[in-house]
């Protein structure tokens, strides 16, 4: 949004862009746009990709930060071929031991795909192997300079914490803290580890509190470390007294005031674009989103407790007023009102008027339909919403699965099979889509041959990483539904062997169900 306002819409840069590039725009949420995101494997936005006429990627820019002049410099450098991905790759092929060059290239890979960091990691490993003592060059880290090796070790530590599809481990980053106790990256490393320990599963629970205490002691003025401690405590339901102390010490963390001071200082400096970056519309939109979420959480909490109802309903109304297009707020509020016997209020918030909102997407419409159909209320409007969603996104797996669910609720299984049955799944090769399909039909105890075929294909297509454990769990569910508990047992054991602790409870519950079924079968 800021990129458009400050850069694209600024006539100062518009002419340059028009003259030097062929410009193409891929909006997320639009059918063609989504296909382009998929084709070029782009996830976050904003993201600018520069390609030559032969389709070869030359370079990219992820994110936007003011001032626009500085951003324009980056675009100009790409056009001039300065340190682009293409140029760096060619140089690295010529000089495979040039550590600063390899670091630049690794950073480029990291920027291209922050989630799948294999390419960047391979280069960082090379850097550490070539220059273990960090003497062959420096690189930027924010406003500081650190050795390329130090940066490489930090990046590998980060990847070990976050990278999807690998066994996550805090050990490399903990080793980094020990090796570089005076590092300029130290605080960032503590932040990453604290965030990890705030939510880490099973085996890490015990190390979490001592580590978070260490982080708070090291950075007593930085409230986020306390926040992580509080989150851990709430997750574990342990050390509550200490967490309360931490929460009380977090007082005074008012980001709006800090942002206001920063903006005033930038204004004094004569740099309004930095003031806008710190305290502009995007900042305030974020505050409104966060306020709406707070109001919603407050209202939901008290409406569930059936206490403070006047205040809760008032705050729910304010949350919806702040974010009128938020289907999740409306759906949850309507559910609470129905529970409280206030059907009129539920209709007022999430009734037929809602689906006339022009900005709604297929997912919002389906949320609406899925809310009303099982309740056997407001059926005409709910069916109309479902039909609109199917027209808007006829190939979207979530939309199709939701529609199938609705048809089943309406006792029209043939219609469900028509849109989300064997003919549909044969065209799919995404493990997650295949697995969800299998689990869906296992839940219905229908269409089980096709469900089994899809769930098996999902596990074949996916790798062996921990993040894929749910595919095996789905396969087990389908085997169980199909009356094959022995096969289900093998699949569930595989799921458990891949899991890191995030899903252990639910997997073990299914394992017990499977074992009971085997026992029952043996008695027969």
């Amino acid at each position, binding site marked *: 949004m800021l990129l458009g306002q400050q850069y694209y819409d600024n006539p100062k840069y518009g002419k340059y862009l028009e003259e030097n590039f062929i*410009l*193409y*725009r*891929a*909006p997320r949420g639009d059918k063609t746009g989504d296909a382009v995101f998929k084709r070029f494997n782009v996830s976050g*936005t904003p993201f600018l990709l*520069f*390609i*030559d*006429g032969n389709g070869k990627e030359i370079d990219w820019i992820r994110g936007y930060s003011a001032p626009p002049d500085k951003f324009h410099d980056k675009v100009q450098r790409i056009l001039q071929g300065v340190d682009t991905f293409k140029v760096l790759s060619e140089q690295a092929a010529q000089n495979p031991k040039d550590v600063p060059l390899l670091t630049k290239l690794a950073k480029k890979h990291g920027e291209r795909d922050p989630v799948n960091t294999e390419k960047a990691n391979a280069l960082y490993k090379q850097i550490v192997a070539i220059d273990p003592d960090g003497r062959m060059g420096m690189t930027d880290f924010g406003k500081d300079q650190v050795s390329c090796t130090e940066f490489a070790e930090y990046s590998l530590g980060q990847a070990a914490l976050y990278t999807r599809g690998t066994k996550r481990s805090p050990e490399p980053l903990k080793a980094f803290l020990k090796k570089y106790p005076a590092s300029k990256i130290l605080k960032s490393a503590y932040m990453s580890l604290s965030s990890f320990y705030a939510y880490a599963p099973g085996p890490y629970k015990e190390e979490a509190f001592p580590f978070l205490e260490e982080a708070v002691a090291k950075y007593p003025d930085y409230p986020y470390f306390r926040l992580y401690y509080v989150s851990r405590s709430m997750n574990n339901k342990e050390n509550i007294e200490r967490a309360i102390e931490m929460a009380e010490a977090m007082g005074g963390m008012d980001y709006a005031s800090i942002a206001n001071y920063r903006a005033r200082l930038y204004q004094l400096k004569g740099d309004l674009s930095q003031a806008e970056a710190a305290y502009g519309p995007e900042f305030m939109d974020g505050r409104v989103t966060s306020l709406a979420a707070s109001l919603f959480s407050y209202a939901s909490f008290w409406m569930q407790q059936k206490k403070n109802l006047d205040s809760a309903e008032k705050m729910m109304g304010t949350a919806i007023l702040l974010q009128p297009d938020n289907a999740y707020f409306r759906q949850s509020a309507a559910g609470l009102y129905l529970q409280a016997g206030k059907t009129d209020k539920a209709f007022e918030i999430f009734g037929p008027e809602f689906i006339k909102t022009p900005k709604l997407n297929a997912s919002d419409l389906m949320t609406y339909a899925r809310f009303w159909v099982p309740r056997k209320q407001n059926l005409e409007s709910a069916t109309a919403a479902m039909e609109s969603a199917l027209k808007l996104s006829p190939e979207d797996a979530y939309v199709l699965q939701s529609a199938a669910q609705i048809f089943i609720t309406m006792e029209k299984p043939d219609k469900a099979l028509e849109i989300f049955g064997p003919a549909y799944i044969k065209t799919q090769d995404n493990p997650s889509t295949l697995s969800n399909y299998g689990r869906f039909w296992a839940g219905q105890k229908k269409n089980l041959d096709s469900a089994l075929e899809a769930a098996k294909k999902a596990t074949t297509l996916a790798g062996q990483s921990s993040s894929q454990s749910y595919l095996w769990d789905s396969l087990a569910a389908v085997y169980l539904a199909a009356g094959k508990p022995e096969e289900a047992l093998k699949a569930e054991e595989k799921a458990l062997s891949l899991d890191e602790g995030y899903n252990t409870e639910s997997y073990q519950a299914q394992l017990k169900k499977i074992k009971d079924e085997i026992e029952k079968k043996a008695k027969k």
Partner: protein
Amino acid sequence: MKKAFVFFILLLLSAAFLPAQTWLTGSVDDALAKAKAQGKLLLLDFFASSG
């Protein structure tokens, strides 16, 4: 002098209301072919309305 001032204001206004750049939105392959024919780079802007 007055005429020159009016002309200057009109010039400024016309610049302010110039349309933004032309962004293609259809086929990427067509855009690539256009880039190749004109010897330019293709700039793909991936964006979300909220971001």
